[in-house]
């Protein structure tokens, strides 16, 4: 037990019964989140592997299909997400220093940026639907690369769709953290939930940073 740090008023209430002390609980939660992120890497990794396989097999088709994606919107979304990671870090810092009001502010900002991302994504999906680029019976792609292009778009929707799902879950987590902050839960003694949510959010951002060049920038020249 760390006796150098004065016990916070509700430190005892904060420790779950299976742990010896708050420190053990914090370490366990931290390790738990990293292990979970490892599973997420493998989860997305399977699709990245399938993407790599087909891209090596059909480089020209993938380039042609990738060119049909809106690079500007993709770049905007990338900037939006990176900014949201910045605001997330500020939110965690707020929690870490016990400034719950600041934490709420930055959490809301992060959620707003996340919502912008999703809005742009939804708009893009709609555009693809209108352009008949959604795989399935309505898919239409001029030129010789029709079939591999359909595979590209299957991967596009599966990977960005899964990513968007993770974003939605992330926004849910941010809401929960905002509610906790509203009840002044975070302090230098205990800010684990918001710290781990931050890890999750950064990870989801990182996935996008891989997705963007792999999906939007195939065969593009500046």
């Amino acid at each position, binding site marked *: 037990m760390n006796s150098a740090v004065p016990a916070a008023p509700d430190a005892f209430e904060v420790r779950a019964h299976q742990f010896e002390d708050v420190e053990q609980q914090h370490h366990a939660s931290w390790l738990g989140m990293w*292990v979970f992120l490892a*599973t997420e890497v*493998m989860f997305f990794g399977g699709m990245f592997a399938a993407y790599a396989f087909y891209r090596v097999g059909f480089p020209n088709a993938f380039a042609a299909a990738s060119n049909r994606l809106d690079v500007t919107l993709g770049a905007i979304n990338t900037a939006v997400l990176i900014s949201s990671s910045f605001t997330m870090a500020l939110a965690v810092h707020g929690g870490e220093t016990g400034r719950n009001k600041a934490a709420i502010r930055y959490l809301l900002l992060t959620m707003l940026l996340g919502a912008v991302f999703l809005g742009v994504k939804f708009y893009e999906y709609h555009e693809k639907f209108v352009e008949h680029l959604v*795989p399935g019976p309505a898919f239409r792609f001029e030129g010789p690369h029709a079939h591999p292009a359909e595979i590209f778009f299957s991967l596009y929707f599966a990977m960005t769709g899964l990513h968007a799902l993770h974003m939605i879950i992330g926004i849910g987590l941010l809401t929960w953290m905002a509610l906790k902050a509203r009840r002044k839960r975070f302090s230098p003694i205990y800010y684990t939930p918001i710290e781990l949510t931050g890890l999750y959010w950064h990870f989801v951002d990182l996935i996008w940073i891989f997705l963007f060049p792999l999906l939007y920038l195939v065969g593009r020249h500046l």
Partner: protein
Amino acid sequence: MNGAPQVHYLNVDYGIRSWLFTTDHKRIAWLYLLSVTLFFFFGGFFATLIRLELMTPQGDLVQAETYNKFFTMHGVTMVFFFLIPSIPAVLGNFLVPMMVGARDLAFPRLNLASWYIFILGGLFTLASAAAGGVDTGWTFYTPYSSIYSNSHVALTVVGVFVTGFSSILTGLNFVVTIHKMRAPGLTWFRLPLFIWAIYATSIIFILGTPVIAITLLLVGLERVFNLGFFDPARGGDPVLFQHLFWFYSHPAVYIMVLPAMGVESELVTAFARRRVFGYSFVAFSSLAIAVIGFLVWGHHMFVAGQSVHAGLIFSLLSFLVAIPSAIKVFNWTATLHRGSISYDAPMLYALGFIGLFTIGGLTGLFLASIGVDVHVHDTYFVIAHFHYIMVGGSVMAYLGGIHFWWPKMTGRTYPEPVARVAALIVFLGFNLTFFPQFVLGYLGMPRRYHAYPPEFQALNVMSSAGASILAVGYVLPLIYLIWSLRYGRVAGRNPWGARGLEWQTPSPPPTHNFDVTPRVVAEAYAYDKEPEETYEFGSPSRA
């Protein structure tokens, strides 16, 4: 002998709500025990139908389409809903916190959520069975599963997909618990070998399961949204599916056997009353199996159209993965030397395990020998091989473990004479069922055959006869274990005189396992010392 304590984890609270909303790892272990037992008999029911059909060469019991559903449902149920969860989710959940000296797992509510996710996945699969079943084989090869099958593929893959998350969360819980919640003095090399095995298994849960999740998701999406991802006519590659599928499903078989090996170590040491020979070698071999196990998936694809180079590399690695298993077998056998060996039912299962796992492992060498695999791949030889490991191995270890820890879990002992007879029946029935299948495979009978050439009938009848004996062997424990809950002799704290933290608690243990967190002061399996000399229970520090 000390009797059962007044208040323990089973009677501390009554009512269905106290069970369905529990966060006690021991109660969650029971929830899993009941569920996997139901799934075991469900899968066994399909096995019975298969063996009935195969008594005659003609496909005369059921139509081909129905038979194809039988072996698919048998495989899916047994692999995903029995073998993968059984030892980790039942024995692991019950024992891991106790073996490391903790009050519960790191994340008890997540543990309960894992069980609910498991049940949800199971319900999807049962729904698929009720709706008419699926006929793709448990391996879901494309394009048959993604395009041609007319059965409930999407519903089944959703079931397996959902259940995968149960495994992932359980693995996560175990890894964090083992890393962060060991009692004072319990260094890594003082851990019971069961914990090492569970740890290695959890690594596979965490890294492997997400890959099959995404693979099955892609198959499901392809079916529902007509995607053409694995459709060769639309640029897709059916063999890519096999790579993605086996990347998980090979390590999955190590998920099924590593915990069994962990149980085996516990049983051998307890019933020979001496330390496991070569402790650190056995511990490291678990890790080696987990790591190398991720590198051999292509041995399922030697004749799938994979390149010759890839085939050779996978063959080499497949031989390497056999070596740690051999090391374990030799060390268990050496543990018997100068032990003091009793013939209680758990030990009978444990001794049977060594023999049957050895046969299963040796026949794996046949399959790794790429030139021979060309002949026996996709024949009954393979079926015999994996049943020797999974049934002769894992199920026997599971039963041995259930018997060994039954007094701890229930406070009662089971009737020993019946249990020994049942163990023998299982051993004999098992061998009669599956040994003839090695011969059938060499002679050229392929897998998943509804009807077969008449010259194979004698061996098939032998196999079906064995299956009926094996079934008796499985039903007996079901009966007498339930009987023992009411009429079994009250067990004491440590009826076997074993070492290990779990035997330092009352039988059944209190909800929080230990009144006081123990401090470990000796190696694992210190049979040269008295149990009391191996732990210190100081003054209470925390409730």
